[in-house]
């Protein structure tokens, strides 16, 4: 089984620019995927750098903030790497990859029946105590995580992809395999539920 092969990615990089982001940012996803499909591990490595953090957030939105999410991302990326030849370069790469990672997270969640719950600190739940601003912000994020976990699975994915990751409705629809109108509904209801859950912090949120 061949491991990482260095071939075409050198051609698309610009060696004189030192930061890797700059070197690789101009290369289209589809071009990197095409090189990866020929066995170019470096090309796929750039895609990992480009989308690893985003995929981790999506997996965490599905599974919660524990190691299961990291395992799901790893499984998803390995599946994508092994199945890169099945990617259709005429379609956007990001939803294709995210769908694989999301499915991996959903499968893992079903297998392990993990429903990670984060205890809400009492003072955060009450919403009446106002500590210093930094602590307040930290509590807000903690409550946001809890509120997100309480949403139905698909609403969680939809609002994370749309509002946090910048996906279009059409791209979210492709990831979830549902009509765009359904995505709009998911996002709307998710926002409303989050707004309700975070009511005490609503005015203070940056």
């Amino acid at each position: 089984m061949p491991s990482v092969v260095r071939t075409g990615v050198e051609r698309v990089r610009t060696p004189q620019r030192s930061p890797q982001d700059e070197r690789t940012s101009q290369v289209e996803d589809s071009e990197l995927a095409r090189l990866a499909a020929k066995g170019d591990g470096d090309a796929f490595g750039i895609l990992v750098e480009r989308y690893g953090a985003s995929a981790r957030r999506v997996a965490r939105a599905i599974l919660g903030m524990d190691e299961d999410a990291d395992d799901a991302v790893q499984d998803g990326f390995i599946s994508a790497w092994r199945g890169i030849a099945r990617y259709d370069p005429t379609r956007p790469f990001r939803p294709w990859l995210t769908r694989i990672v999301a499915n991996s997270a959903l499968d893992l969640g079903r297998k392990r029946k993990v429903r990670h719950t984060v205890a809400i600190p009492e003072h955060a739940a009450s919403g009446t105590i106002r500590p210093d601003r930094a602590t307040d912000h930290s509590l807000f994020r903690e409550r946001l995580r809890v509120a997100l976990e309480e949403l139905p699975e698909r609403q969680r994915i939809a609002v994370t992809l749309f509002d946090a990751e910048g996906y279009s409705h059409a791209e979210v629809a492709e990831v979830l395999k549902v009509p765009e109108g359904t995505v709009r509904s998911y996002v709307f209801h998710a926002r409303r539920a989050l707004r309700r859950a975070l009511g005490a912090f609503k005015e203070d949120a940056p």
Partner: protein
Amino acid sequence: MTEQTPFANERDQSLGVELRAALDTADTDVFIGRLKTAVADAGVETSWDVLAAWAPRGLVAAFAAAVLIWLIGPSSAPPAPAALMASAPIQIEVAPTLPEAVVITVAVMEGR
């Protein structure tokens, strides 16, 4: 967070920022490095790898098929030559011209 309808196309920017911050941790770079290593170690499957994965099952199936053919083979084997002869229709010899009436009469009378 802003009030919006399901028909709005705008992102809720402030919610997006907060969601990203809530779902991110400080170890993202370490995680990405680990992820790249895991992917590189996993390698990519070639068509030979796929065939190799199927090979043991294929060999077992071929062996099973061979055993099965060997077991049921005799009943469906072609019949022996003797059996062929027995089942063949009786050959009738026909004279090119009709015999005369006296020849037939003599043959009947002699019991031939």
